[in-house]
């Protein structure tokens, strides 16, 4: 089943065209990796899919579970099961992490016509997840990402993902800034989400994450287009050879 279907997507920031004809299909059960040089448009693609204001889609379409994604608000996309893991998670001092988790879960439940989560069950689940991410409970009571180290912020993204169990997780460089142990923990977290009814898109620069979370497909994004797709061996090739040959061959 097609979870995400991107067709000829063009988008600009201000007057500057960034995405210039993206085509990508993610089926349930698949893990895709998107790689590509700095500035090629990977984060822009994530933001556009998340519905960020200021990113204007000028052409093309995106469907999520067969429905037009682009006409929905950011929060509707989220409650429908799309989760964006940020490359640079923003700090929100004063808003407790635990409060965000609860509000997010309840927003999702409300969209599904469910009642608010039972606090006791919620706390239990969150504590387990926090532990599984190698995080201390104290993180729950701090402001969202407030003063978190780079790696802690990324773990926090995965914690949210595991709680919200999105149908499609779009993880933008979740592996950057992680130490070796943390990379393992985060990878395990991602693998736990993996399943026949879910899709995962990993934006990454490094093969290392992909050796823990093996992708079904690897795509190379360059100047706003996917210029090459392949299986996991493409990432290995990149790691060994760098971008130049592939870019040359593609042009």
């Amino acid at each position, binding site marked *: 089943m097609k979870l995400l279907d991107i067709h000829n997507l063009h988008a600009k920031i201000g007057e500057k065209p960034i995405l210039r004809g993206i085509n990508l299909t993610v089926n349930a059960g698949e893990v895709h990796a998107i790689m590509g040089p700095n500035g090629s448009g990977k984060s822009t693609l994530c933001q556009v899919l998340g519905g960020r204001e200021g990113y204007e889609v000028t052409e093309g379409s995106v469907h999520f579970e067969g429905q037009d994604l682009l006409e929905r608000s950011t929060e509707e996309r*989220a409650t429908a099961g799309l989760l964006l893991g940020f490359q640079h998670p923003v700090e*929100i001092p*004063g808003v*407790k992490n635990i409060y965000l988790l609860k509000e*997010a879960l309840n927003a999702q439940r409300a969209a599904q016509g469910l009642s608010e989560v039972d606090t006791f069950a919620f706390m239990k689940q969150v504590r387990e997840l926090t532990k599984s991410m190698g995080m201390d409970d104290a993180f729950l009571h701090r402001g969202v990402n407030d003063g978190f180290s780079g790696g802690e912020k990324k773990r926090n993204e995965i914690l*949210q993902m595991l709680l919200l169990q999105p149908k499609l997780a779009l993880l933008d460089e979740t592996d950057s800034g992680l130490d070796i142990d943390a990379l393992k923990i985060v990878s395990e977290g991602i693998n736990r989400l993996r399943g026949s009814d879910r899709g995962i898109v990993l934006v990454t620069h490094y093969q290392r994450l992909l050796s823990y979370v093996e992708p079904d497909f690897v795509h190379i994004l360059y100047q706003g287009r996917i210029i090459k797709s392949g299986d996991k061996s493409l990432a290995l090739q990149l790691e060994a050879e760098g971008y130049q040959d592939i870019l040359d061959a593609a042009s």
Partner: protein
Amino acid sequence: MTDRTASPTISDSQEIEHLVQREYKYGFTTDIEQEIIPPGLNEAVIRLISAKKNEPEFLLEWRLKAYRHWLTMTPPTWAHVHYPPIDYQALSYFAAPKSRENAPKSLDEVDPKLLETYAKLGIPLHERAALAGVAVDAVFDSVSVTTTFREKLAEAGVIFCSFSEAVHSHPEIIRQYLGTVVPASDNYYAALNSAVFSDGSFVFIPKGVRCPMELSTYFRINARNTGQFERTLIIAEEGAHVSYLEGCTAPQRDENQLHAAVVELITLDDATIKYSTVQNWYPGDEEGKGGIYNFVTKRGDARGARSKITWTQVEAGSAITWKYPSCILRGDDSVGEFYSVAVSNNYQQVDSGTKMIHLGKRTRSTIVSKSISAGRSQNSYRGLVHIAKSADDARNFTQCDALLIGDRNGAHTFPYIEAKNPSAQIEHEATTSKISDDQIFYLQSRGISEENATNMIVNGFCKDVFNELPMEFAVEAQALLAVSLEGSVG
């Protein structure tokens, strides 16, 4: 500055209905039929006010003295607020309570928009009617449980009544304390208030008594009609404790544009007064038309050793707010606290803060001020920490944070520090932050609406102050902020 909020002991709103009815029935409100004195202010008007209230001679003299002093004064211009000059001769200084004839007879006759707001604030149905100005006797029609409330207070020896009533029942206390914290000549608006004050609250907690419940203006029936020049006096004798709640989260409309209240608090040795306010007077429309001018003088005198005065305020309404609840820390080891959230939206102007005057030894003060500016509003914190020569080892901590929503508003900070004693320890922290699009987007991407996202950030920002409010007040205050800031983002 009127109205509701239930005490924790009598929180059931049905009981409140009874309560209101009872007090009304018992003629708590004096002279309901008085006519209005025509506009204008002179000694004859003041004599008339005093006569109508049947006041003792000393009070009339006090009013007249205040009036004569007021004549020599000019309105303050230092505050960061702008408004056309007020014609004091055009105001009416003795308006009888609104005629019931023109009052809406039921909720069906009330502006639906107002009712919508009440609903958003979670105000119980039957209370909405009273707030919307539906004639009270049409709303509250049952027997009373006030007895419990009044009996409990009486048993404890607490006096809680309208100021006018206290003038008759306890003139000696009034005479002893009135104007000893805010002298009639203190400032332009305080002088005006002293000359013409209409009514207000009087609280006296005798030695050693811990007031058995939180006192709220809600329980004083005629609070709703205290008029534009309210006067409140609270005295806590040695070792006494009281928590007093003033205000209402529901939007308050009033035909009087100028409100100039005075509040005086006095604590003797080891006494504590906690004074919490939620202010939500009509702020004017989106273009800045209309709205109340709220020029208030609030001051506490921590007269006794080890006594404590805490001001907590949530200021959301009024077109212009000019207000500096202050503490004179006279007693050794006395403590003053000021916790404030001031929200401004559209064209509102807020100039608020506090003065902590340290006179006694080892006196301590804490100031936590949170301002939130949206729309085209102007929001200023103005604070003075004064450490007198006599105040050995005094300490102050000030935290002053501003949160901006949008970029057409202004947040300003005017902290003044005067330390005359070298042993003083003064700490001042200030931050200015803005709700960023990134923050809102982050929360939205977790399924939270833009409005809720803003509220989450605002409430997080105000947490330190809300924590100081009595429980139910805190919950209402959160809802109030949400409503006040509605439409300010995006």
